[in-house]
């Protein structure tokens, strides 16, 4: 069953067309990767799905985004969270001046079973429980990324969007994160992850899309995509 | 050469117009036209800082007050000083200057103060700068009230010789516009516009933003000071309340409604304000709804900020007129 269906999507920042008619699907229960080099339009695509594109001066100018069969392009961003879409943004964007616990409170703004969610993310990242009263801005990069993911999970999303979760982190920390992502997926959450870290994406996803200057240039199962010569050349 | 011709032509037309007004306008209308000219000097000079660099100053009236008090003291009849200002400091007792020189000295003092406070204040950004310049205005106001030996405090100074006339005002307005125009239209001016549109880009172009802000701020203060001197010698009576927040607000409203990014917008704002004031004041008085004028002006300001944030004139008047003429010709031809 298709959870997210992006069709012929165009997104612009003023005169710049950053996404030029891309289409892809995310099936329920899967982990799907969106690969591409810098400036390919990955972040822009995720912003269009989460709806925050309007907050950074961009606009969806064509195409459609459907979630659970429902067109959501016109739905304001905060309502998409209630529908079950949660984005862990590029650069983490944790609330620096709030404590770890308060970050999680805000993450769970829309849910009723706050206690259960908290229990779940503390189990996933025990370090956060230890650090719950620390000011988030003083966490290490890896801990901040864990917090960002944990915060994104607090709303109990059906679809978790991750924008370059491994960026700037040591390999050991990346392993921890991806183990957690697999665990989250096993618990039933669908994941769409944007990466430049090709190896991790290959071993952890069910399906892969490769995007270049705003267009999809290849797609398929991990092994399939990797065997394509053009992809090899592009991703290096 | 092209410049010189245009300037000369404009000056001639202006002079002819003034001659016409001078010989036909009645006392009251004359007064309005004079006041309008002073407002225009204030708005055009404020536009130099607030419009052409991204400095939003609320302290302009402070500079005006400095100029007004300075010029008034300098032209005040020497023989009347001992009885009128019994505690006047020794150096001021005999300091006399003819009116034109007094205006300039008032402007220079305002400019000097702008230079001194500009060093710290212009390093602040956005809001902070607005607050700090408002602070400057309030400090000036407070000093005027309290430096009684020189300013006579709340009583104010009356009996200032009535030297200002329409010629003086419009001569200075012409000068203000000319100087502002030369600055805006110069290499420096383009730099200032670059600063306004994108401070960071300007910095990466190697433009010393601080220096240009300071230049604009100081020149703006000079003309505000002169406007103060003109005003004092027109009204012949000044007190601290004349230089309060109300005037600050009015000048800002004129500038923003007219269009703070163009010179024409700045003086157009002053013209509109004066005209609208004359239309609305009688309504206020006949209905007894005191405050109506300000109410309407403030609503206008908010509406402009929402619907036309660059003001009425987004381009210079000559550009707009030329476009109209061209459009007219084309429609005739077709």
């Amino acid at each position: 069953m298709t959870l997210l269906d992006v069709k012929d999507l165009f997104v612009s920042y003023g005169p710049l067309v950053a996404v030029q008619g891309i289409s892809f699907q995310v099936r329920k229960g899967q982990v799907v990767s969106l690969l591409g080099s810098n400036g390919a339009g990955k972040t822009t695509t995720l912003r269009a799905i989460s709806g925050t594109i309007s907050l950074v001066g961009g606009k969806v100018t064509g195409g459609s985004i459907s979630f659970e069969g429902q067109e959501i392009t016109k739905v304001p961003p905060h309502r998409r969270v209630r529908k079950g879409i949660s984005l862990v943004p590029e650069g983490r964007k944790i609330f620096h001046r709030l404590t770890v616990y308060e970050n999680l409170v805000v993450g769970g703004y829309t849910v009723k079973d706050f206690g259960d969610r908290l229990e779940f993310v503390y189990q996933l990242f025990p370090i956060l429980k230890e650090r719950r009263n620390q000011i988030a801005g003083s966490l290490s990069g890896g801990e901040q990324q864990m917090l960002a993911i944990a915060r994104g999970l607090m709303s109990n999303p059906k679809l978790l969007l991750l924008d370059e979760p491994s960026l700037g982190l040591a390999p050991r920390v990346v392993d921890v994160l991806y183990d957690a992502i697999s665990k989250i997926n096993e618990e039933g959450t669908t994941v769409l992850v944007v990466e430049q870290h090709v190896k991790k994406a290959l071993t952890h996803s069910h399906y892969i899309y490769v995007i270049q200057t705003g267009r999809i240039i290849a797609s398929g199962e991990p092994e399939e995509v990797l065997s394509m010569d053009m992809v090899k050349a592009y991703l290096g | 050469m092209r410049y010189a011709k245009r300037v000369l032509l404009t000056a001639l037309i202006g002079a002819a117009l003034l001659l016409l007004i001078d010989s036909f306008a009645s006392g009251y209308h004359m007064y309005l036209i004079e006041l309008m000219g002073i407002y225009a000097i204030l708005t055009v000079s404020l536009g130099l800082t607030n419009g052409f660099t991204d400095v939003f100053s609320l302290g302009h009236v402070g500079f005006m007050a400095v100029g007004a008090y300075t010029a008034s003291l300098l032209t005040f009849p020497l023989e009347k000083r001992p009885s009128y200002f019994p505690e006047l400091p020794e150096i001021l007792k005999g300091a006399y200057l003819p009116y034109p020189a007094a205006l300039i000295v008032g402007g220079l003092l305002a400019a000097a103060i702008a230079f001194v406070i500009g060093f710290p204040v212009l390093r602040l950004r956005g809001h902070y700068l607005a607050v700090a310049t408002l602070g400057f205005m309030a400090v000036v106001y407070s000093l005027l009230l309290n430096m009684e030996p020189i300013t006579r405090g709340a009583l104010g100074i009356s009996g200032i010789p009535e030297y200002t006339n329409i010629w003086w005002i419009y001569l200075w307005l012409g000068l203000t516009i000319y100087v502002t125009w030369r600055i805006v239209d110069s290499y420096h001016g383009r730099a200032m516009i670059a600063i306004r549109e994108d401070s960071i880009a300007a910095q990466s172009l190697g433009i010393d933003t601080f220096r240009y802000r300071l230049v604009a701020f100081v020149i703006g203060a000079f003309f505000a000071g002169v406007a103060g001197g003109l005003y004092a010698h027109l009204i012949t009576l000044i007190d601290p309340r004349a230089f309060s927040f109300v005037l600050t607000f009015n000048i800002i409203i004129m500038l923003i409604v007219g269009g703070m990014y163009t010179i024409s917008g700045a003086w157009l704002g002053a013209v509109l304000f004066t005209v609208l004031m004359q239309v609305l004041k009688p309504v206020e008085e006949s209905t007894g709804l005191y405050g109506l004028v300000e109410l309407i002006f403030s609503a206008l300001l908010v509406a402009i900020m929402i619907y036309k944030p660059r003001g009425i004139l987004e381009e210079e008047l000559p550009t707009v007129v030329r476009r109209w003429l061209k459009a007219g010709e084309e429609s005739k031809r077709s």
Partner: protein
Amino acid sequence: MVSATYILDLFIGSFVLWSMYALLAIGMSIIYGILRLINFAHGAMLMVGAYFYIMFLSMGLDPITSLPLSMALGAVLGVTIDFFAYRPLRGGPELSMLITSLGVYIFLENLVRIIATPQPRVFPLPEFLKGVYRYGDFSVRVIEIFTIVLTLVLFAALVLFFTKTKVGIAMRATADDLEASVLMGIDANRIIMIAFALASMVAALTGFLWGGMYGQVDPTTGFMPGVKAFIAAVVGGIGSLTGSVLGGYILGYAEIYSVGLLPPEYSGLRDGISFLILIIILLIRPYGLFGREVERV
């Protein structure tokens, strides 16, 4: 002669001023934190709040009912102003909101001038706040004690609200990072509405205290307190609650002591002194004592 009672008088006086500046500054800080708007019109909300209270009294209601009603009406007005004046400017340059708030200030002042006439109104203090305690030379008014205590209680309540309730924490999160807070399912417009309601409510209450302290109000009453609170907030570091409280204290203290201890001929300089403090502090610490460099370009 500077006597001990005199010093004590000054002490109480500075605390009372602190209370009122801090209450206003807190409101300004809350709004600034979320919207990056220095709300110049905030002082007018104090004045309007005092008039609302008088209005409810003159409708025959008792003080105990009139005060909460005037605060509620203040909150409604604050939210309405945001809706019509500031909301259309969201996402635009910060300065346009500042300019607009100047306009809003003048609008409110003159609206009251038209409706309630420019003449000062007597501000009737409820009976239970009218008394004076005397200990020998020293005397203190009940309203002064009331003001100080109420401010402390309110400050404690606000701290609890911002650290212990979900909405309060969400407001801080929005102030920290608006985009991220939207990603958490927070409706930013709703948070902004709450901020305006809260700030305006506190301003209306300050109007009651101000009127009670000085016995009368007129349409221009809000101007100076508004400007002072604005300075207090900036001095303390706008956006920081603690900063606002501290800034309010510095200002109240400097003002009262400069008037009280300087020779009388300088007493007229008190407003100027506040601004001097402001300018000096901004030069030493451009983001205020507790402010952080969070400015967006």
